[in-house]
């Protein structure tokens, strides 16, 4: 399972990459593996929307289940990955790259402290196998 070291993770299996005050998020390799083939992604937020930490940002549907995705930290959406609408399988193939969901400006970087680092997340995933 791929768990990049430089990212932070949530208990609901989202990842966030932080560059300055800018965050990029998606769902983890573990999450896409659990969901199996993803057939539909709906990003609920639009550019300019401001969301609090933990609010639903997208819903993901696979052949097995439908699941909500939550924003790992509060902020204002600056970009949405429109390509997911026609190529939802990007999340299966490249969850940390082409499978990104939204980019946003962090409202309060201190919220990142509540997230897991890669090591803690790895143990968290192993505990659920």
């Amino acid at each position, binding site marked *: 399972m791929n768990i990049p070291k430089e990212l932070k993770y949530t208990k609901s299996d989202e990842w966030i990459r932080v560059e300055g005050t800018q965050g990029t998020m998606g769902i983890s390799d573990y999450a896409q593996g659990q969901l199996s*083939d993803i*057939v*539909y992604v709906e990003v609920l937020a639009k550019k300019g929307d401001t969301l609090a930490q933990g609010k639903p940002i997208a819903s993901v*549907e696979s*052949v*097995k*289940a439908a699941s909500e995705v939550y924003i790992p930290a509060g902020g204002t959406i600056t970009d949405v990955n429109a390509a997911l609408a026609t190529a*939802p399988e990007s999340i299966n193939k490249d969850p940390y790259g082409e499978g990104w969901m939204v980019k946003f400006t962090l409202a309060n970087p201190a919220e990142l402290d509540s997230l897991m680092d890669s090591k803690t997340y790895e143990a968290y995933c192993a505990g659920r*196998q």
Partner: protein
Amino acid sequence: MTEPTIYELSSPGRAGVSLPALDVDPSTFPPALIRTELPLPQLAESDVVRHFLRLSQWNYSVDKGFYPLGSCTMKYNPKINEDTARLPGFAFVHPLQDPETAQGCLALMYQLQGWLCEISGLAAVSLQPAAGAHGELTGVLMIRAYHHDRGQENRRRMLIPNSAHGTNPASVAMAGMEAVEVPADPEGNIDLAALRTLCDETVAGLMLTNPNTLGLFEENILAVAEAVHGCGGLLYGDGANLNALLGIVRPGDLGFDVMHFNLHKTFSTPHGGGGPGSGPVGAAAQLADFLPAPLVAMIDPGNEADPPLYGYRNPGKSIGRMRAFNGNFGILVRAATYIRMLGADGLRQVAETAVLNANYLRALLKDTYTISHERTCMHEFVAEGRWADAPGVGAGDIAKRLIDYGVHPPTVKFPLIIPDALMIEPTETESKQTLDSFADTMKKIAEEAHTHPELLHDAPHNTPVGRLDEVRAAKQPILTGKLT
């Protein structure tokens, strides 16, 4: 082996009947409105009969074989149910005729309402809802109306265990409320500590299936009821798994305030493609006034000379109609027949045998498949369809391979809290021979998973069509056929 469509079987000029030549003046219907081209298939009667008989023989049903589809209670449906539903007095009644001329039908519904009250320990029952999820929506709307009636419109959160049927949160959302997940403890019960922290003045209630979808009796049920009632909430019972409790425990005695019954599961009426559902809702005394209107009532108890007179009554604070007329009446006749055929002792025996059969099967399989919890199960249990030393094989592959052996697969990949779940519910109507044979098949498939995994990956092999492409079916569904 494939079957052409009826259009592909068509041959110009062929017909089922030869009509005599027209011997009256043709219609003066405006020519502009007459369709000149209508591509109906042209076939002989025998072509049509054989085509549809072949299709029907491909169908799998509980009349054909074992159908352990967990949480769906695919028990055998006794054929006497069909006899009674076809009695002319039941089959040819019209819902708009004067109730005084449909007294037999109303009497049956009145009695069925009473029997469901007795079975559940609740005060009143509406037979209107047409399916389980429809019953859930009815119950949730009643809970909402109850809180609004008491001026507590802030109660908008419905607590739902993480093993619940997906219809529970969906019903809550449809009723304009918010679903809040409650985790399970390691024993598979509701995590009481987590529940207590969620219980506050914004809670409308908690929806619970008991036994739950792991096939486990919710052992903390009395404490759960106390916590929910303690904060002013109500307890909703999802009756999907009532088959395990019939005649043994009454949900009303456990603290449930409102629940639905799945007549098409517990009470042996046709199910799935076989017929419409029926999800009556029962309510405890404090909620009975909110039931859908109208209920069937005894207007006059009658006397030695005159039989009772049945009609309708509207509960005072009813949420209104949930379905036209009296719900799926033909299904009510079948369920009433089932209850009368078995009686109180028979219903209890249904639950006992259903639980015994599930535990027998669980014991046969537990050394081959990991079982979700090391506990005595109720009417069903959940096994894991995967092995560490058989990589790449999952619950879906086992399910498809079962089709090759002539068995309907169990429910797979649900509940979501168990990886590669196989949810197995044998029901009380299966013999020891059937259960033994199924266990042998499951063990054989486990062996194949280790020695010949391709047999599972490529399954099913013995069906008219092989493994379907689920991803393509979800992404690019073709839902219509072109008539040629």
